[in-house]
């Protein structure tokens, strides 16, 4: 049923969704659900939580769709809703730990050694292996493009806290990636 909207332009799809047409809503969902699931998956602990966030996020999207002013891309608008939904989910489940300490944090000045390329899924899994606070700030800053000030307002922390947490998250991530690359090289031999 959703195939009828495969080639439909955005404005028509949005109009039919606003008319509460199930076929249009399903087509809308199928068009963006995979990408948004990837977004949610990066923030939460497990796939079940990611689906919960995705479900809640899409409900918000459909109920607020009339607020979309066609300024900026629709995908970006949906992504922001998913991000805030994911963060609210984390806050609600008290996954955040504002004060984290890292054992033996190592500042990595140079970039990551890229002799052995890190696969897409490995990178995502590595991000997800980070503690929730680090993971969230890393996603918000490095991936979504929020500034530290905006992250502070979103998470209810100070700007400096966001900076320090991000530095620690990046350090830890770099360390984890380096270790994975070493393992990959060892296995290749």
């Amino acid at each position: 049923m959703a195939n009828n909207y495969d080639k439909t332009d955005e404005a028509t799809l949005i109009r039919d969704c606003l008319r509460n047409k199930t076929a249009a809503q399903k087509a809308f969902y199928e068009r963006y659900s995979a990408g948004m699931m990837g977004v949610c998956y990066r923030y939460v602990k497990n796939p079940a939580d990611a689906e919960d966030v995705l479900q809640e996020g899409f409900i918000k999207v459909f109920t607020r769709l009339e607020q979309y002013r066609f300024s900026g891309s629709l995908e970006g608008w949906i992504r922001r809703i998913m991000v805030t939904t994911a963060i609210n989910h984390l806050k609600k489940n008290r996954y955040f730990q504002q004060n984290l300490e890292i054992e033996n944090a190592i500042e990595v000045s140079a970039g990551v050694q890229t002799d052995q390329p890190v696969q897409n899924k490995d990178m995502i899994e590595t991000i997800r292996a980070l503690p929730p606070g680090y993971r969230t700030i890393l996603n918000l800053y490095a991936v979504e493009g929020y500034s530290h000030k905006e992250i502070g307002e979103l998470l209810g922390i100070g700007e400096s806290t966001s900076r320090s947490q991000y530095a620690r998250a990046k350090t830890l991530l770099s360390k984890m990636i380096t270790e994975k690359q070493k393992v990959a090289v060892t296995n290749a031999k």
Partner: protein
Amino acid sequence: MSEDQQYRDELEKMLQEEADLFALKPSEKVWQKVNKELHPHSREKYFIRLALPILLAALGAGGYLVLHHHGKEQAPATLTGQIPGNNHQASPPSGNSVNKPPAGQPFANAQPASPQKINIVANPKRKESSPGISISRQGNIATSAGNPQINPSPGPGSLKKPATPAREKREPPALQTDSAAAFTLHNPRLVPPAPPTPKTETVGAPAGRDTIAVKTARRPQWELYFAPSGSYRFLHLAKGTGSGFPGKLHDNVSSGFSAGLQVKWHLSRQWYFATGLQFSRMQYAIKASGAYPAYINASGAPAYGQTGRNSFFTVNNYALSTSAAISHAALRNSYTYAGIPLLLEYEIPLKKKWILNFTSGIGIDYLSAKTINILSPGNGRYFTDNSKVNNWNSLFQLSPSLSVPLLHSRFRLQAGPEFQYQLFSTYKNYDVKERPYSIGFRFGIGFQ
């Protein structure tokens, strides 16, 4: 270099690229939950969709039954009528005499008389108990063990991009949050170029106004329609008549049509209110064959001489004949309506932008009934009544239809059966029950 730019390095770029390419297909239950949340009463609505048209039809039928008045005795009227030159004419009434002809030989004692002027007039002083109504004849997440099925990456050289619209790396829009006050995102590091203006409808509207999607959804829809129809009128026999009369009556399917201009407005999700201007015409014809008495009197007994106009075709629905030689006669009448329909419409979206509509309601109509003609084709004889009926009335309308898009997205073709039923008797002041109905097929062109 800004303070944020100093933190940009190869790791961050890689993170962003990998994250943008990463996609997972969620399980089907996610959509089921979303759909259930958006349409919480879908099952109930399913039954309402089926029950509502039936309910409206039942209301129409119930209204008919409530308004139905099981006749009362009608005062006799003088039978006068112009009969064009012929050899068989009714005997002039002699007072109120009732002459019951012998069975099978109703005109055995009829004596031809010199041509006389016969006028059929109605008795306006007839007592009425109620408006007589007669019918003269509408990404993947695997569901097991919580381990996701991640879209495999074929390699850095051929990363497969998910099927999504052109992605932006940064967007500078506002973010709505649940608890915190909304704030505007702005990343000075990478200010994206302005997105291309959508090729379709552009809003260009300042903040605060409706989006184009909302405007389109709220725009009224117009329809120009024409519906040829046929009516097969079930005869309504007044009380007092019944068996015992020879001959047969045959309803002939007669023609009619309705046409008009209709506009509908969006009430809620799938409900619309429609109104406009409508013009309808119904006709009927009844063929009577066999031998008939000259007239039917007030008590329903066959007699000669005196009868009222309504006796001719409504109370007893029998044609009159003045001679046993007349083999058949035909009753014809037509009704013309002009009015304003008041309708409720329910839409059910289907595949390929088709829409199933259920429309029902009533109209405020002005009725004009044509001069009643009773024609005997056997010998060209007819009885003519010069009176006309013009009064306000109401049409009940029921029409399920299918709407399909035409070549242009703003035009639609709508087609389906249409049922129309006159709610009040044509003759309000007489003990006559005429509430014709018709069943037709409606074609309409809708535009928005």
